[in-house]
């Protein structure tokens, strides 16, 4: 915790301000459909959560549109992790077989569609590139320590938080965004665990940590304000 506080105190470049501003300006956060999105990705108006719920009803049309939007992006993710085209193409197909199979288990109250698809792609790449299992908690385990009772509007809150984080990320300067991408595109075959501790400031790792802490702090401030 001390580490985080220190990191926040030290972090004072434009990126943190950009995140802060994005998180503080509800008008931007709640803005309507953003047609000017330069990367061609879905604006906040496209409801991939609803599309994914339709896939759970075995709606093939919904599945096709989900595949056409996310398939090439998942492929790009696999390519950046070092896979060749043929393998990336196969991993995309495997990812969407999983999407089709598991769509019934998707809960829009817990995760955005892009987040859910990311976790599927991530687990596949761990299996494919590293031949390792992905240890995960079991939500039904009697030993699991449950969350404090969720607010009645948990789904709405999750959606807002998800939108705020993504909005904040899209408003970061490009070099900062690239830092965050890098941290998700990295495959640490020789795990540099020590690299996760006491990172000198200014390195890529410390910048992702600082960006992350900044986003966190801003969200916590906002929660505190809402609670008052």
């Amino acid at each position, binding site marked *: 915790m001390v580490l985080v506080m220190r990191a926040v105190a030290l972090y004072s470049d434009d990126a943190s301000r950009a995140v802060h501003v994005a998180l503080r300006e509800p008008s931007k956060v709640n803005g309507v459909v953003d047609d000017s999105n330069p990367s061609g990705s879905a604006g906040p108006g496209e409801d991939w959560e609803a599309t994914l719920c339709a896939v759970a009803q075995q709606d*093939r049309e919904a599945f096709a549109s989900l595949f056409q939007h996310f398939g090439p992006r998942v492929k790009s993710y696999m390519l950046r992790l070092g896979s060749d085209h043929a393998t990336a193409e196969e991993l995309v197909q495997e990812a969407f077989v999983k999407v089709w199979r598991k769509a019934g288990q998707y809960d829009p109250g817990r995760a955005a569609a892009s987040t859910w698809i990311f976790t599927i792609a991530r687990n596949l790449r761990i299996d494919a590139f590293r031949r390792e299992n992905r240890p995960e908690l079991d939500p039904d385990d009697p030993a699991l320590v449950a969350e404090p009772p969720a607010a009645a509007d948990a789904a709405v809150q999750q959606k807002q938080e998800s939108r705020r984080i993504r909005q904040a990320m899209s408003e970061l300067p490009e070099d900062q965004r690239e830092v965050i991408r890098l941290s998700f595109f990295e495959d640490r075959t020789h795990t540099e665990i020590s690299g996760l501790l006491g990172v000198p400031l200014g390195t890529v790792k410390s910048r992702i940590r600082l960006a992350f802490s900044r986003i966190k702090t801003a969200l916590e401030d906002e929660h505190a304000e809402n609670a008052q």
Partner: protein
Amino acid sequence: MSIAHHPSDEFLVAYAAGDLAETWSLIVATHLAMCPACRAEVARAEIMGGWVIEDAEPAASNGDALAAMLARVETVAPEPARVARTDMGEAPVLPQPLRGYAGGDVAELCWRRLGRNAEHIPLLSTRDGSKARLLRIPAGRPVPEHGHNGVELTLVLAGSFCDGEERFARGDVEVVDSDLTHRPVAEPGTDCVCLAVTEAPLRFKSPLVRLVQPLIGI
């Protein structure tokens, strides 16, 4: 009793990114089972991962990718929606995913002696040279003083231990860096059971322990 010592944000982000070897993921995931606060952090980092996918420059795919995809799912049966289990019996000491790796809960395990005081069960080693093991230190006894050639993470599952001024109880994670020599002591009352992941073999101070180190695989 709330958890006082958590893995750093770097570990949580790296876990969310899928960037940790299985040993480190195991200890993070087991901590998450006991720590709703860190679960929320990982959920936020996964939202960042979702953004990374959403934001990625779409890669050109084969022209027939969609047709192939649709043909492929014709043969795949969807799984039913998850039904929350209701037969919650008595809570085991070892949460998942650790219980699966250990092959049972604490009472069902076969411990091996490790020096005079401790017992252990090796669970997993990965290509990066890291190792995960369960450790059991009898109540009130010290772990032999040791240093590290790398990072060590220790997650308390039962009992508690003190390391210098700091106290670690169920759910707490101690992160020890390479240059520290430390001597954790289990608190009186209950045997202390921990999951420990080490980056590289430990450096024991005692020449005798160093001598048997290769034999016991720690």
